[in-house]
């Protein structure tokens, strides 16, 4: 019995570790020169994708008019668009030119979804934070201003520098320029990702499938399409990696040029986004370690140690001389999530309940939960299968092992979702993990469906599986109620940013002047900073209880003292909080009710208290939003 078992183990070990070539190729149909010139399905796919985008625009417009079935139309259109593109990428007969075209088309079409979601103004939370930074640069023509809601934003000004150049030279407004910057970045990103994967795999089929799978990453459709520094930094980080891989096998006459590309894209990444730079460093350190291990050492391939050291020096220099506050900004949430995780493991804390409702008016449907869980399971299976075949066939190729390591880190990072502070961190890691996940899964797919001849069953199965990944990715990116526009919701980011709030902030900038100190709820604070050019007091920045001013039935003497101490001049009160519950569980700041959560909206009397307090003047009324001026001269010791 033991001998049989040993025999099986030995057999498995030999199966797992066959002899491998240095650079094995994926079995694919060799197209003739004539076939390589064909565009194949691309023209019709472009027309079909454009038609789907048109349907999405109609669905979004329908949602704005509260028409029934708008949501159904949206999902049918976006899933059909993805399905047809991925099905062609899975096929065996498409030329490289066609695959690249499809990948660019897919990236652009999905970007159009974001534009259609917010066609008139920035409506995503982070966009408005960066709007303040670009506004300051346009006004002063200098960098490194102050942004009270996102202090690190002005210290990583790559996105705003590019936007500034477009605004100044073209005369376009900030919003349109921002769309252009991110749109050009998206196209370059898709191009770069395709070329990057193609360099690694020497297969345009693998590159096409992997790039399309990357589009299933939850951040792809909205978060990394918004006007935010990560959206641009990812482009440069990817181009850095692409240039390094290109340089590894470049002819001698190209070395200098590619080196320049590495330096420029690396420098651009460092000055654009902190987290992306750090993940780039992690990627580089893995790469450097692997290429110095004897098993992967290749005399013909230059190592990247110098570039890695340069990247470290550049990153640290920027942090030390320009962006010192970013250290605490990054360390705090990471350490908090790790401590939470350790406490959960040792039973000192209960894990966070997944899909817990923060608002009783919205319940996540059962099929959505299944889809999201299913996506996670599919990714785990896909990564496991892909890693298995990478080891069996491609283990001598350092690029494959690198991707496998990145992909294998995915399960570990998702554990953070069970902590109270970790879900956002787990989500933010996604775009970087997916660089490896999508490649590994693509390798696994082509192993089961080699590119030698068409198998209709496998074709359908993999199209459906990729589609499920994409669908689950969208659901993971945003709550379903946030994907489409609709009626106002309290504290619901894109569903809360609307004309009354924006015009109130613009009124403040115009009539009160800039740089006054305001206290407000989450959304109106954001609008006051971005459109109003005001300064905002927050709990995290100023270490005071800002929600207490608003949700307490009366103000106590120590709160008046705080108003004086912190120098708050104006309060913004949104009366809609007396009608609807907050979608994220709070109106002002997380934890404002302590361990409790809202089971009903705020009482009108709570927010009306300022009308009966002689220390506040109601100076502005727009119906839902009011501004109260604090009569500091009446109770503060103002010199």
């Amino acid at each position, binding site marked *: 019995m033991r001998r049989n078992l040993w025999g099986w183990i030995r057999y498995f070990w030999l199966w797992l570790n066959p002899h491998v070539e240095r650079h094995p190729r994926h079995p694919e149909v060799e197209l003739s020169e004539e076939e*390589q010139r064909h*565009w194949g399905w691309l023209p019709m796919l472009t027309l079909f994708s454009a038609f789907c985008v048109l349907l999405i625009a109609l669905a979004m417009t329908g949602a704005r008019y509260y028409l029934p079935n708008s949501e159904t139309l949206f999902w049918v259109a976006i899933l059909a668009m993805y399905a047809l593109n991925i099905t062609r990428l899975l096929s065996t007969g498409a030329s490289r030119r066609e695959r690249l075209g499809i990948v660019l088309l897919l990236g652009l079409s999905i970007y159009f979804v974001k534009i*259609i979601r917010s066609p008139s103004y920035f409506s995503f939370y982070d966009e408005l934070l960066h709007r303040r930074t670009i506004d300051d640069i346009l006004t002063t023509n200098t960098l490194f201003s102050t942004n009270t809601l996102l202090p690190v934003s002005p210290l990583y000004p790559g996105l705003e520098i590019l936007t500034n150049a477009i605004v100044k030279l073209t005369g376009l407004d900030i919003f349109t320029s921002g769309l252009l910057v991110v749109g050009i970045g998206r196209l370059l990103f898709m191009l770069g990702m395709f070329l990057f994967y193609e360099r690694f795999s020497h297969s345009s089929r693998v590159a096409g499938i992997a790039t399309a799978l990357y589009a299933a990453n939850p951040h792809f459709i909205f978060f990394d399409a918004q006007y935010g520094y990560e959206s641009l930094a990812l482009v440069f980080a990817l181009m850095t990696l692409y*240039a390094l891989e290109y340089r590894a096998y470049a002819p001698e*006459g190209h070395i200098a040029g590619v080196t320049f590309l590495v330096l420029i894209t690396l420098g*651009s990444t460092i000055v654009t986004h902190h987290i992306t730079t750090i993940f780039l460093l992690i990627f580089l350190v893995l790469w450097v370690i692997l290429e110095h291990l004897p098993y992967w050492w290749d005399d013909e391939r230059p190592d990247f140690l110098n570039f890695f050291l340069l990247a470290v020096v550049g990153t640290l220099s920027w942090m030390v001389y320009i962006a010192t506050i970013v250290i605490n900004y990054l360390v705090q949430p990471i350490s908090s999530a790790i401590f939470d995780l350790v406490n959960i493991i040792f039973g000192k804390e209960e894990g966070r309940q997944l899909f817990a409702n923060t608002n009783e008016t919205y319940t996540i449907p059962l099929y959505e939960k299944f889809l999201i869980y299913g996506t996670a399971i599919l990714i785990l299976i896909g990564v496991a299968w892909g890693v298995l075949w990478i080891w069996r066939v491609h283990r001598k190729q350092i690029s494959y092992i690198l991707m496998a390591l990145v992909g294998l880190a995915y399960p570990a990072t998702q554990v953070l979702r069970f902590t109270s502070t970790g879900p956002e961190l787990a989500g933010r890691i996604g775009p970087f993990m997916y660089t490896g996940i999508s490649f590994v899964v693509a390798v696994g797919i082509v192993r089961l469906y080699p590119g030698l001849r068409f198998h209709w069953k496998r074709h359908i199965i993999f199209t459906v599986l990729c589609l499920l990944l994409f669908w689950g990715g969208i659901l993971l990116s945003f709550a379903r109620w946030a994907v489409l526009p609709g009626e106002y919701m309290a504290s619901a980011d894109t569903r809360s940013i609307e004309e009354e709030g924006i015009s109130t902030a613009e009124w403040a900038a115009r009539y009160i002047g800039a740089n006054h100190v305001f206290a407000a709820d989450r959304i109106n604070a954001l609008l006051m900073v971005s459109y109003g050019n005001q300064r905002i007091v927050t709990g995290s920045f100023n270490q005071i209880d800002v929600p207490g001013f608003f949700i307490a039935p009366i103000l106590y003497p120590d709160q008046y003292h705080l108003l004086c101490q912190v120098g708050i001049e104006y309060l913004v009160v949104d009366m809609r909080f007396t009608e609807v519950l907050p979608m994220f569980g709070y109106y002002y700041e997380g934890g404002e009710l302590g361990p409790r959560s809202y089971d009903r909206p705020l009482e009108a009397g709570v927010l009306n208290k300022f009308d009966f307090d002689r220390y506040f*003047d109601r100076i*502005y009324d*727009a119906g839902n939003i009011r501004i109260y001026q604090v009569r500091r001269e009446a109770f503060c010791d103002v010199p």
Partner: protein
Amino acid sequence: MFRNYLRPLGLLALTVVIWVLLTIEGLFFPVRLIASLLLIGFLPGYALFSILFRRDALDVTDLSAFVISFSLGITILGGILLNLTPFGLSEEGWRLWLAGFTIIALLISLFRVETKADDFAGSHRRPHNLSTSQIMIFAAAIVLFGMSIAIAYEGDRSRPKEEFAQVWLFWEDYWQGAVNMGLNNLETQTNDYRIVLLSTGTTIHEWEVTLEAQESWQVQYMIPRHFLATSEVSLVVYRAGETEIYRSTTLRVGN
């Protein structure tokens, strides 16, 4: 041999033309847009590329990736440098940096122009091979994309939403009793308003105002001294013909 100099010389001339065009006030917008985007997203990168690589050294896809990355990176890193100069990130500064960099790079590249065939020609430039019908399909797709944006924009602009007016009242000069008050009609139709300035229930002044959509009414008013001895001053707005208060603002007087 002169043919090899045509491209860098042509781009040099183009850069100079763009630099001059962008100094013109009131330049036709599409020309400004195209010229600016070329200057930001293509010319500096191609100029640098021309120095570093031999002609036709790269496949068109790699070439595109290199040139656009170079251009965007030169712009971003150039912005960091501009911040240290008296120009700052002004329009003048950008023109100087981007056009200046491009011109200098192209001049350098003129010295690198090869007079013989490229030994490293890795170009796999295939002809585009697009038929007329395919071009028309692409054109139709572009039209559909454009329509999508237009539908989304128009739908967002004209969607049903709660229309509102803004009313304000604040001290322009507290000790003089000067107040700034106003009303912005942000609705889509003309409205009639009755605006009443009160002092603890006593009418100080009243206005009947008709405002078209997006029109504003604003007044700076000196409150008579005897009303400043009261406890509060209010601005109350009614829609014409209605008795229910539409908007109200209140200022306390004294400590």
